[in-house]
């Protein structure tokens, strides 16, 4: 909008890609590998997390194929154990945790607050290199003997009894931890000191609030897992006994330290996704978000209370009854801010002007799946029920609903929502809607049967299972194949759109955020003139600059019906 790159007619607008933007300002592989531009670093992350997503996805596919028969027909028990471990490690540490923060967060935080870059661009690049270095260690572990400890690395299995390549894997995760820490540090500092004039704390987009909350967890949680896994590595290398009962150590202490980070890590995955949804819903409902301060506050509340609940993973380890009561109580408290968010999103739809664009479908899918994932969390937090469903497929289903149903739906919704900003072009709307629906149905078919399997008592991490569980397992595998299609489709059409997509223009939806006030793709310095914020967040009423009255080029004729 700041540059005269569009020519308008009365009814339709044809946009051109601006002549110079962050993607073409410099060329060559060096200009990418040594870039300090947060947008380019975001793309580096986009490629690398996608790579790990497919690595983890291949493992997942093999797991599901293996479990089609009770005896398991694809791999040996050793290999099966390695598959689910490596699936977990690749997906959690190298896809889910960096996905939204490092890709969308990196790209958007400076744009949303009107800054030229993050506070420490070089440290930002360093974060990516640490991520890659950690990834190399982990891939080395995968390819030289694999890893069979479970992603939870419970001692003394991981420290004494496993013969797989545990040491390089824990070092990889250790290194990757510093990537997270530095990203979080960068975000916190940037959000504190780099906001544009007029961008007060309560004008911040909710996505930025979510990133801030996530960063708190990165900064205060990640170092604990780093040191804990380092100790496991040292135990293996030097025959030490921190967590080894044979040498006087306490294996349960490992679990305390592990979950001190790894439970809040779940909020690292879901909070940014919630932030994405909080951006998408007001944009496509064209009205201010309901209860802005409650949504912002609930992000912080989740991040803080999330640190008080970790030992609910340990109700059956012989944990003290009193501690179990306290942790169960606190776990129920953390459910409240999540509930507040869902209620506020729903209310935002009330008397909106709702369109069925793809990001909105993802948001809808997110609410549905997160609802199931979140509510089943109440079952697991319940002390009496946890006795029965702990470590069964119920848990597997629950956390996949949160991490895949929640975080990945949020991630893909966000990728679609900001794709025009990232690439300057629109994705093919019809295909995108189809793939959103495929994903939603495939996901439910894959994971819903696992709740029932869990309640029937099928334990996690079994390479073979009693025959009475076969039907539900086959359903799950069938769902997974649909799910896989749902993930491949966006890959294909998003790449296609890079060249053939309709040019989007600065603000195709239109949306109210600051990131939509600059060109698509943005110039390297984000804003040619430092913007000044004079409006309240998600306010469509007083924003004539959004020009709602012209039809945006290339979009499906609206209102759209039928294909949902």
């Amino acid at each position, binding site marked *: 909008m700041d540059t005269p790159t569009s020519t308008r007619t009365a009814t339709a607008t044809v946009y051109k890609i601006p002549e110079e933007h962050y993607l073409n300002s410099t060329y060559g592989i060096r200009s990418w590998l040594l870039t300090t531009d947060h947008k380019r670093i975001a793309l580096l992350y986009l490629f690398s997390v996608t790579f790990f997503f497919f690595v983890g996805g291949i493992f997942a596919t093999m797991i599901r194929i293996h479990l089609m028969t009770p005896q398991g027909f694809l791999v040996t*028990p050793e290999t099966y*154990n390695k598959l689910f471990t490596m699936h977990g490690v690749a997906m959690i540490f190298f896809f889910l945790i960096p996905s939204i923060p490092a890709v969308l967060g990196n790209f958007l935080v400076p744009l949303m607050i009107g800054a030229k870059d993050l506070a420490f661009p070089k440290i930002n690049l360093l974060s990516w290199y640490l991520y890659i270095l950690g990834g190399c260690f982990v891939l080395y572990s995968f390819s030289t003997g694999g890893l069979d400890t479970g992603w939870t690395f*419970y001692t*003394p*299995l991981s420290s004494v*009894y496993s013969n797989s390549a545990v040491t390089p894997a824990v070092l990889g995760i250790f290194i990757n931890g510093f990537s997270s820490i530095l990203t979080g540090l960068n975000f916190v500092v940037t959000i504190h000191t780099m906001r544009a004039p007029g961008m007060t704390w309560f004008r911040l987009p909710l996505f930025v609030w979510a990133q801030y909350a996530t960063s708190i967890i990165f900064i205060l949680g990640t170092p604990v897992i780093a040191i804990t896994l380092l100790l496991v590595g040292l135990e293996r290398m030097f025959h030490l006994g921190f967590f080894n*009962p*044979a040498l006087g150590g306490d*294996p349960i202490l490992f679990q305390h330290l592990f979950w001190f980070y790894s439970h809040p890590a779940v909020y690292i995955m879901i909070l940014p996704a919630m932030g994405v949804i909080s951006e998408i819903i007001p944009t496509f*409902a*064209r*009205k*201010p978000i*309901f209860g802005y301060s*409650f949504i912002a506050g609930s992000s912080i509340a989740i991040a803080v209370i999330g640190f008080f609940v970790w030992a609910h993973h340990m109700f*059956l*380890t*012989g944990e003290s009854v009193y501690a*179990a*009561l306290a942790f*169960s*109580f606190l776990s129920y*408290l953390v*459910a409240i801010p999540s509930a507040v968010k869902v*209620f*506020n999103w729903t*209310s935002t739809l*009330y*008397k*909106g*002007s*709702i369109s*069925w664009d793809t990001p909105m479908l993802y948001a*809808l899918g997110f*609410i549905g799946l997160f609802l199931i994932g979140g*509510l089943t969390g*109440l*079952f697991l937090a319940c*002390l*009496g*029920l*946890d*006795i*029965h469903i702990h*470590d069964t497929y119920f848990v597997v289903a629950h956390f996949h609903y949160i991490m895949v149903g929640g975080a990945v739906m949020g991630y893909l919704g966000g990728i679609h929502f900001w794709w025009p900003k990232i690439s300057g072009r629109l994705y093919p709307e019809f295909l995108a809607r189809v793939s959103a629906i495929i994903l939603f149905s495939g996901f439910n078919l894959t994971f819903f049967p696992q709740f*029932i399997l869990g309640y*029937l*008592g099928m*334990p*996690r*991490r079994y390479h*073979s*299972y*009693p025959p009475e569980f076969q*039907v539900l397992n086959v359903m799950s595998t069938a769902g997974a194949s649909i799910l896989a299609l749902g993930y491949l489709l966006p890959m294909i059409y998003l790449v296609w759109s890079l060249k053939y997509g309709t040019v989007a223009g600065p603000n195709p939806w239109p949306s109210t955020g600051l990131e939509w006030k600059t060109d698509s793709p943005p110039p390297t310095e984000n804003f040619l003139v430092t913007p000044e914020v004079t409006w309240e967040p998600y306010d*469509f009423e007083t924003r004539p600059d959004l020009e*709602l*009255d012209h039809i945006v080029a290339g979009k499906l004729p*609206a*209102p759209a019906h039928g294909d949902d």
Partner: protein
Amino acid sequence: MQAQFPLIPEQASNFAPTVDLLMLFIVAICLFFAVAITFAVIYFFFKYERKHQTEIGVPIHGDMRLETAWIVVPLVLAMAMFAWGAVVYVDFRHSPGDTLDIYVVGKQWMWKVQQPNGLREINEVHLPVDRDVRLIMASEDVIHDFSVPAFRVKMDVVPGHYNTMWFRPTKAGRYRLYCSQYCGTNHAIMTGWITVMEQGDYAAWLSGAAGAEANPLVAGEKLFGEKACITCHLSDGKGRGPSLNGLYGKQVLLADGRTVTADDAYIRESILQPNAKIVAGYQPIMPSFQGQLTEEQIIALTAYIKSLQNEPPPPTGAGTAPASGKK
């Protein structure tokens, strides 16, 4: 055993109905909210669908009363869930006074069980119906978890700690037992069966188990477990002692280079003076059983070892018969 597509496992202990009722309570509350929200979202999507391009929504910024309501109401319901769950859990963690104590030791990858009278079982637990049972559990190596879905109970078995749990079987029958905490390669076959018997049958079984020893093969198999031979002489050869699978009649290479034929005399000598002939590749760590076994028992053990000809490798399927060499 059950309907074709059961949604809940059999109810076979005092905890089963309690836990199921708690489940039902939480399902009801969650279903209410899930349906209400899903319905609201879908209704709004259709009702407030954008009618023309320039339309914007009605700017509503929030409502304090609503916010308060949806903080307080879920909080109250959550506290109800917490309280109910806590009651069940506290009951589960505090065993009643007069219990039948069974000792359980988990090790990669089997359950070793000892009845109050000293009788040992492997991957099998026999229990009387309607009697409070307490399991006292420990692990020899990694963390395991003793889980019986039909009883709705489970508890981690942690090395260096003793964990206990209690329950009261309420229905005779055979129920699956699982290891529920990932414990390494054969985690999925660290399974077994709980046999709940009428109290009279259980008493008869406890005392009558000795009667079965008339058959040397059965007695030998039992001894093989009871005397813990099985902990080292694993059938897959990965134990601290050599596998005895298909041993009888074969040539054995000893540590000092000699070879002997594994006949009755050799087996007997190896039981009574284990260090006389050490199999190549193994440490002289086996204790002597001199004076601990009657001749009858040695014969029974030998008979059992003889029977281990061409024993198939341990079954890989969960829930099959325990892997202690049943014919």
